[in-house]
């Protein structure tokens, strides 16, 4: 049971996400029927699941809200801010309920009862609307067209009905097909056998029908007979059960030969508290259909199974490397093609396996939309949140890790970046501030940019703050970019005013740390009165990379191919004679570092060395190594906590022959090299 419950909670969280995004869309396009449908269905599934797993409180509030959206669906109610506000509150509340599970806190309980009252207010207001005399009876019935109503239908055919070629039983059958029913036939008028006229119809019927069909639908059944037959159709109302057990009294009246009038039947029918008995059957069916539809497009798999699969693929890739090595060494004419084929297949297998873990950024954008919506109300700023490229995919774990830093950046944008409406008007900017979230691929990286069109960051203010905090000397000559980078230092906040949202002095350093944990980088650009752009650069996945296998001394290293641009061959003499560590490549002088010296290797270098040109901050930087072995798919393994301080090594990988090669982080090597060089000068 617990495990099903867990599954429900997972599912519920997905549903909540759908709900949130649909509600947000509705807030800008209140007439979007498709999203009303989505909300209705999500509420519905939430309700069903929560009732099944004992989340009665979720059941209660989603049930109410479902009713409201059902009204919207049928046009009896309009989507307005009030409804959306409540919807968001319910969504938050449901989140709380799911999280707290059995240990509900006092505040949640209080919240619950308040919410219920609020929802019922909304729903009831609309109830009264539908009873409004302005509305014609037909529209009132339309409102209920999805509710189950119980009808009393009395059908007394004309005696000569057979002569018209009509079979009354077919009519009864058609009625019966509309929903749950009970048919009483009255045969008391049938005379004794000798007197029967076979062309006459002596029987009449009373049908109790619980259906979501309207009165018109039922009338249609009698379309061809109603001229000469007596047809009485009465809506007895909804919430009436006509289950066998509830009809015992009526049955006995019927057996006693009583004429079953509508009033008589109504007096015997017990209204049910909730419209459960009949409607539930239909709900279950609907639900089944939903599940069917979903399973075609996606399958829910536990992330553990995925991790296991990825581990296996990683191992396969490692073993594949051994096979390639063996095939190469044996140089067997039959083995080589097989090994090459397997190499290709395992590459593809690797790529598709890793793509399973990739999910579109859209998944987290919903949260940001909500944040913007809420904060724009809090700060009384009008903000348009625009997204681009949200179909860009990233590893699930990276997306999870990004939520917090991006939320933080958005908070900063709204709190510090964007001006108030008044200020914007004075500056001649559009009244609505804009926050743009843009995601795109570039090489083996994904970039996420968050821009606002606010006041920008005052570089001078940052510089003064940096001096005050003692980070930089008073007369430091620094580029704007270097100064801006200081906002990523711990405890650096220039806001004089502390708000509840941002500006507590913890902030950008956490953003930086979180992004670095994901092997990403964050940078900032700003222009006064034009806006600020934060750029987060991330790797696509964390566990397998295409690399360049190189040798230094007797050790293998892997340089990520994504960073390497070109390779060049030089004699050792050229490198040692290079002035100022600059070497002439492709009509350019590019700086380089010899990794032998950097790593402190003192053995005799080979006569010819290779330089791998690495793209670093838009220009090339060379890394000199002994020689290049070839391309290599590296399954990244952590070096563990013992080598935690080793910044220039991003991990290790196991080679085909079982030895370990280190995966270098060229950018870190270069930045450390530049730093060392800078400090020496």
């Amino acid at each position, binding site marked *: 049971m617990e495990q099903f419950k867990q599954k429900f909670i997972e599912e519920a969280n997905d549903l909540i996400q759908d709900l949130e995004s649909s509600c947000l869309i509705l807030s800008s396009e209140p007439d979007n029927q498709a999203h009303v449908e989505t909300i209705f269905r999500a509420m519905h599934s939430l309700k069903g699941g929560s009732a099944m797993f004992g989340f009665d409180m979720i059941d209660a509030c989603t049930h109410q809200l479902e009713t409201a959206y059902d009204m919207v669906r049928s046009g009896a109610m309009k989507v307005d801010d009030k409804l959306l506000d409540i919807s968001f509150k319910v969504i938050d509340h449901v989140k709380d309920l799911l999280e707290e599970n059995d240990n509900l806190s006092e505040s949640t309980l209080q919240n619950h009862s308040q919410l219920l009252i609020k929802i019922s207010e909304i729903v009831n207001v609309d109830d009264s609307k539908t009873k409004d005399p302005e509305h014609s009876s037909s529209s009132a019935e339309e409102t209920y067209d999805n509710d189950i109503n119980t009808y009393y239908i009395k059908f007394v055919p004309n005696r000569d009905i057979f002569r018209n070629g009509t079979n009354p039983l077919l009519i009864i059958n058609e009625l019966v097909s509309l929903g749950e029913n009970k048919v009483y036939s009255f045969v008391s008028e049938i005379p004794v056998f000798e007197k029967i006229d076979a062309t006459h119809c002596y029987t009449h019927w009373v049908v109790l029908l619980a259906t979501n069909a309207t009165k018109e639908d039922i009338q249609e059944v009698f379309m061809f007979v109603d001229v000469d037959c007596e047809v009485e159709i009465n809506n007895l109302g909804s919430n009436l059960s006509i289950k066998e057990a509830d009809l015992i009294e009526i049955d006995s009246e019927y057996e006693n030969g009583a004429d079953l009038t509508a009033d008589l039947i109504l007096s015997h029918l017990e209204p049910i508290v909730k419209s459960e008995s009949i409607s539930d059957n239909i709900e279950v069916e609907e639900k089944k259909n939903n599940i069917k539809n979903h399973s075609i497009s996606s399958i829910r798999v536990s992330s553990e199974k995925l991790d296991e699969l990825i581990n296996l693929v990683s*191992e396969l890739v*490692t073993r594949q490397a051994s096979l390639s090595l063996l095939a190469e060494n044996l140089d067997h004419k039959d083995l080589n093609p097989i090994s090459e084929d397997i190499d290709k297949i395992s590459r593809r297998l690797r790529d598709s396996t890793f793509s399973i873990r990739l999910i579109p950024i859209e998944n987290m954008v919903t949260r940001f939309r909500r944040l913007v919506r809420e904060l724009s109300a809090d700060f009384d700023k009008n903000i348009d949140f625009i997204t681009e490229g949200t179909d860009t995919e990233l590893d699930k774990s990276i997306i999870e890790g990004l939520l917090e830093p991006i939320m933080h950046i958005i908070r900063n944008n709204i709190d510090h970046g964007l001006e108030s409406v008044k200020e914007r008007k004075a500056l001649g900017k559009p009244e609505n501030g804009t926050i743009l979230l843009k995601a795109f691929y570039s090489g083996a990286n994904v970039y996420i940019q968050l821009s606002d069109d606010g006041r920008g960051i005052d570089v001078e203010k940052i510089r003064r703050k940096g001096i005050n905090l003692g980070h930089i000397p008073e007369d430091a000559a620094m580029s704007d970019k270097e100064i801006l980078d200081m906002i990523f230092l711990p405890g650096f906040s220039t806001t004089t005013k502390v708000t509840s949202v941002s500006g507590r002095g913890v902030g950008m350093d956490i953003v930086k740390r979180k992004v670095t944990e994901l092997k990403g980088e964050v940078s900032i650009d700003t222009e006064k009165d034009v806006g600020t752009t934060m750029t987060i650069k991330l790797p696509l996945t964390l566990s397998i990379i295409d690399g360049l296998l190189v040798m230094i001394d007797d*050790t*293998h290293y892997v340089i990520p191919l994504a960073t390497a641009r070109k390779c060049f061959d030089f004699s050792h003499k050229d490198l040692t004679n290079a002035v100022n560590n600059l070497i002439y490549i492709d009509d350019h002088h590019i700086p380089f570092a010899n990794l032998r010296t*950097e*790593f*402190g*290797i003192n053995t005799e270098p080979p006569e010819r060395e290779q330089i791998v040109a690495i793209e670093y901050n838009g220009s090339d930087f060379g890394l000199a190594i002994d020689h290049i072995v070839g391309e290599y798919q590296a399954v990244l*393994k*952590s*070096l*563990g*906590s*013992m*080598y935690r301080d*080793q910044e*220039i*090594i991003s991990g*290790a990988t*196991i080679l085909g022959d*079982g*030895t*370990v*090669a*280190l995966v270098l982080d060229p950018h870190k090597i270069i930045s450390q090299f530049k730093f060392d060089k800078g400090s020496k000068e």
Partner: protein
Amino acid sequence: MIDSNNNQSDVGTYLTFEMNEETFAINVSKVLNILEMQKITWVPRARDYMKGVINLRGAVLPVVDLRIKFGLPIKEDSVDTSIIVLSIIKEEEEVLLGSIVDGVREVLEIKDDSIVASPVIGTRYNSELTTGMLQVDDKFITILDIDKVFSINDVVEYKEQSTTETLEK
């Protein structure tokens, strides 16, 4: 300074090994495996007792030269040179690492009451790093508290500070 394992039973099981002709012991509960000496991938810019990493059944295992850590002279690799795979607790996390020693000797069952506290003066090693000493025949065995050994970055600094300082920097 008594290992928790010893509190439960009167007899503890220890693996003994040699470094620089001296015998040391580690509680077997800390030992996962003993490997032959093999090619170690050297990691640049690490402390010198961090010898590098090896492949332990598909995982990357850091290897430490316990002799350097203890400031002992390094003997040339021989058939006896071994890597003891240890599971230690470092900063409340379980960490696997390999330790290079001159040679592994035997597994001993040692009665708790035969372990004597290390004398505070006159020993080469900080008494904090040892659980105690044991005399077998005419030899002394130093029982190491291996978690402690690796929780202190610079084991050698406690003694012969002046000579080892340059080594660490």
